[in-house]
């Protein structure tokens, strides 16, 4: 209620977007007449054969498609006629009655369908400018695939099966602007699909014409067509891809990418992988060390902090099992206070030592002599690098479970380290090379048809040697000074700090 009172425009826009989206996606016709067939001079002559189309059935017809079925059947007849010169190609009469004697009977069954992909983000954004109606739905990327299965059975006069053809074709489509209101781009894809199917089957029938003629006791007049129409040159004329796919799907190890070939604007968009939004929580530790006389690092100060936040990245869900690598660009920031290690001096004082009382000389206020000094650090790193590893993908076309392990290195970084130490506030910035890396693992699921992926990421990152603007003094570990005959923490100047972080991320990705 509160939402509707404060944001009526947003709510209205969302409702409009929902209505338009739902209504528009259902409006595309699936029965679309393809363009006329190309003319071939070398069509097979079967002038002594009379053919009749007993059945021409299109599955799942909508009310708007029924009227177009007859036109589609005529188109199919035209394609047959261009490839094979039958004596006649006939339709059934009213009530399915035969109007004559026919040598060949043909049953045609077509199953059209299409898939649609869209980004929820752009759909939502497109619904926002409700006060400027022409802008509603202006930029709404939509993409998908129109697909149809064609099954043709050829029988003789006694309905004995002579030949059977089964072909599947699909064609991709995409639209960027006003896609809510437009359906032509889908129907054009269907037209290409039907063109490919009709052409393929008619050419195959032409190729089989001698065998068909012999089976019914007729002789072809000319059979020069043979396989010519199926040559690669002809295939290249088609924008549509013919495919033979298994009808049923079982859970399997995915070893080959099902990505479509590079084609069109959407393929360019796919280069970006996808858009991922992640919420993360984690733990970071920052430490400063110096090297002792043996070259061994001695930690003199450390601090830790929890990390929480959000991340937006480009990401594509795994498509197959195997090794992978990809470039990565990122940014990490961490604000943390680090402090020297505190020691109790009670064990170190000797009887002749005089303990001090510490105070601030400016105010006279007493201070804790053993209080560790605290350093406020703000660390930033924008980096570009590589991630690689191995990933397992199990599933099928609509659901994929994946897991991966990866290693990464950041080749180039632009770093900034601001250190506030008492009254000193200094920032060091500059480029660094190969100073950080990451190791991690991912488990997740993706829904390829929905273009969504959900994953959990566990990652550890190490950023070495964030350099201070100038050396910073720290108290070293306690050590006995035999010259002075006293235990002291010698002063050490440190040049850099390192950052370790361990984060768990929950990420939702819209995969392009």
């Amino acid at each position, binding site marked *: 209620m509160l939402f509707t009172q404060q944001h009526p425009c947003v709510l209205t826009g969302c409702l409009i977007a929902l209505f338009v989206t739902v209504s528009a996606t259902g409006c595309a016709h699936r029965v679309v007449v393809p363009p006329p067939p190309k003319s071939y001079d070398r069509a097979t002559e079967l002038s002594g054969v009379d053919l009749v189309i007993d059945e021409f059935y299109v599955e799942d017809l909508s009310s708007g498609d029924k009227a177009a079925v007859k036109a589609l059947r005529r188109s199919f007849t035209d394609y047959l006629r261009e490839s094979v010169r039958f004596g006649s190609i006939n339709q059934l009469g009213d009530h399915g009655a035969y109007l004559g004697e026919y040598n060949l009977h043909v049953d045609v069954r077509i199953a059209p369908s299409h898939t649609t992909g869209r980004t929820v983000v752009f759909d939502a954004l497109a619904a926002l400018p409700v006060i400027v109606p022409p802008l509603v739905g202006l930029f709404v990327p939509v993409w998908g695939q129109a697909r149809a299965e064609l099954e043709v059975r050829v029988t003789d006069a006694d309905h004995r099966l002579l030949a059977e053809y089964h072909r599947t074709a699909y064609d991709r489509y995409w639209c960027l602007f006003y896609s809510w209101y437009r359906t032509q781009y889908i129907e054009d894809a269907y037209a290409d699909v039907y063109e490919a199917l009709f052409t393929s089957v008619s050419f195959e029938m032409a190729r089989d014409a001698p065998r068909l003629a012999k089976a019914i006791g007729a002789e072809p007049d000319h059979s020069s067509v043979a396989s010519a129409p199926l040559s690669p040159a002809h295939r290249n004329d088609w924008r549509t891809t013919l495919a033979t796919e298994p009808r049923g799907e079982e859970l399997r190890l995915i070893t080959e990418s099902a990505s479509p070939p590079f084609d069109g604007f959407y393929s360019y968009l796919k280069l970006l992988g996808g858009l991922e939004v992640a919420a993360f929580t984690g733990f970071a530790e920052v430490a400063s060390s110096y090297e002792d006389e043996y070259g061994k690092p001695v930690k003199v100060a450390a601090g830790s902090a929890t990390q929480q936040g959000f991340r937006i990245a480009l990401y594509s869900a795994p498509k197959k099992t195997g090794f992978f690598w990809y470039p990565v660009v990122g940014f990490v920031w961490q604000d943390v206070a680090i402090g020297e290690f505190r020691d109790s*001096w009670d064990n170190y004082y000797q009887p002749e030592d005089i303990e*001090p*009382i510490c105070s601030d000389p400016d105010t*006279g206020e007493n201070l804790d002599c053993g209080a560790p*000094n605290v350093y406020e650090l703000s660390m930033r790193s924008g980096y570009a690098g590589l991630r690689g590893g191995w990933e397992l993908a199990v599933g099928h076309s609509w659901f994929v479970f994946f897991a991966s392990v990866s290693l990464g290195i950041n080749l180039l970084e632009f770093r900034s380290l601001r250190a506030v130490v008492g009254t*000193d506030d200094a920032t060091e910035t500059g480029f660094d090379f190969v100073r950080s890396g990451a190791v991690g693992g991912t488990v997740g699921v993706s829904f390829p048809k929905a273009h969504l992926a959900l994953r959990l990421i566990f990652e550890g990152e190490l950023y070495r040697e964030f350099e201070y603007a100038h050396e910073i*003094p720290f108290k070293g570990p306690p050590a006995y000074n035999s010259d002075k005959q006293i235990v002291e923490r010698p002063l050490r100047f440190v040049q850099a700090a390192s950052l370790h972080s361990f984060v768990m991320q929950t990420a939702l990705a819209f995969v392009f």
Partner: protein
Amino acid sequence: MRHSITERAAFVLIAMVSTTCSDEQLPTLPLNPQLTVWNRCSKSPDNPNFYELLHLYCHAGEAYANLADLLSQPLAVGDETVIEFNQGNFITVVRRRNTGQQIALTTRSGLAVPDDCYTLEVFDDAFRLVRRDNCMLDDGSPNGDDGSDADDGPPPGD
């Protein structure tokens, strides 16, 4: 060196008691012995004088504000200076903290310095009052009761 009336009265009282109530001659504390202050704070090879002593105060109470600084210039690490000490006074030194601000370290109690042969060593987090081995008093009496050459005093020129 000026002394408060209370201090003077205390020392007079100590002297009277020591002369009237004791059969033996007890050593008397000089009112204003010379005290050597030696900066023995740790030094880093990168910045040897980070812990140089910026200010030095000798004061009767714990408060040292608004007192005259006994150093004309910072006392480098390893260096020493000689001040005229008032019996029972506190010593305060001021040096840098690691964070860049300053910190004052004051002896937890007032000091009693028997003679001019004592050195107050200032460490990072402690003081130590020691008697120098090779010290000769003005009256020619030798210092040091065991004759050892222990390294209690500052080496010359250190």
